[in-house]
């Protein structure tokens, strides 16, 4: 593990801001899980990271996931740990929600709903994108 991760990415100038774009639903593939593990690692290492849930990625935040029989961990439970890891910027695309008939009240309350223009602004202003 490179020790300089923390030093070089804690810069507050925003020039190194990493945007994690989460576009896949949980459970069907491990992409959602692996994107969250990336976010957890960023939090644990003190790397500044923002998460954007868009398209099917918004299902990751859907409330009341009940994993009993399927061979998976509860994705919603893992996601809700992110603030404790210091990952606070969790943003959800409004359009993706409305396309799927999801109300903001159906989501875990750790994420903030943003509109189309805010999504564009976010994409335009990050330094690098990790696409999941």
């Amino acid at each position: 593990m490179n020790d300089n991760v923390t030093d070089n990415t804690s810069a507050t100038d925003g020039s190194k801001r990493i945007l994690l774009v989460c576009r896949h639903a949980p459970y069907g593939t491990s992409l959602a899980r692996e994107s969250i593990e990336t976010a957890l690692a960023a939090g644990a290492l003190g790397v500044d990271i923002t998460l954007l849930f868009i398209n099917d990625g918004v299902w990751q935040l859907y409330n009341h996931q009940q994993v009993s029989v399927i061979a998976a961990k509860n994705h919603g439970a893992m996601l809700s740990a992110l603030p404790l890891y210091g990952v606070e910027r969790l943003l959800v695309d409004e359009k993706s929600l409305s396309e799927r008939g999801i109300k903001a009240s159906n989501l875990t309350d750790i994420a903030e709903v943003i509109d189309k223009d805010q999504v564009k602004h976010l994409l335009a202003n990050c330094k690098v994108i990790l696409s999941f």
Partner: protein
Amino acid sequence: MILEIEGKMLAIDEDGHLLKLADWSKTAACALAEQENITLDERHWEIIDLLREFHATFELSPAMRPLVNYVRSKLGGEKGRSIYLMQLFPPSPARVASKIAGLPKPENCL
């Protein structure tokens, strides 16, 4: 490897983690702590209970930062500090305390 506790044989890996989490008990915790040269008292148990609660809630074994934050949110700022946890579970509190608390080995490969 095998850890013998009151006549029961518990399988542990070479890092000292229980192979079967269901084998965990308070007695097992004491034995696991002994492997780390730690004698558990009520200050340790308070943290162990929190770790088990963390795992039940989030399905994760915490890294150091979330552990400190979680302890702070539950027990206040005096105990929610890495130095406090370091004194109880040296040298690497998240790893050592998770092991004693019978949580899976953190795999976040940090």
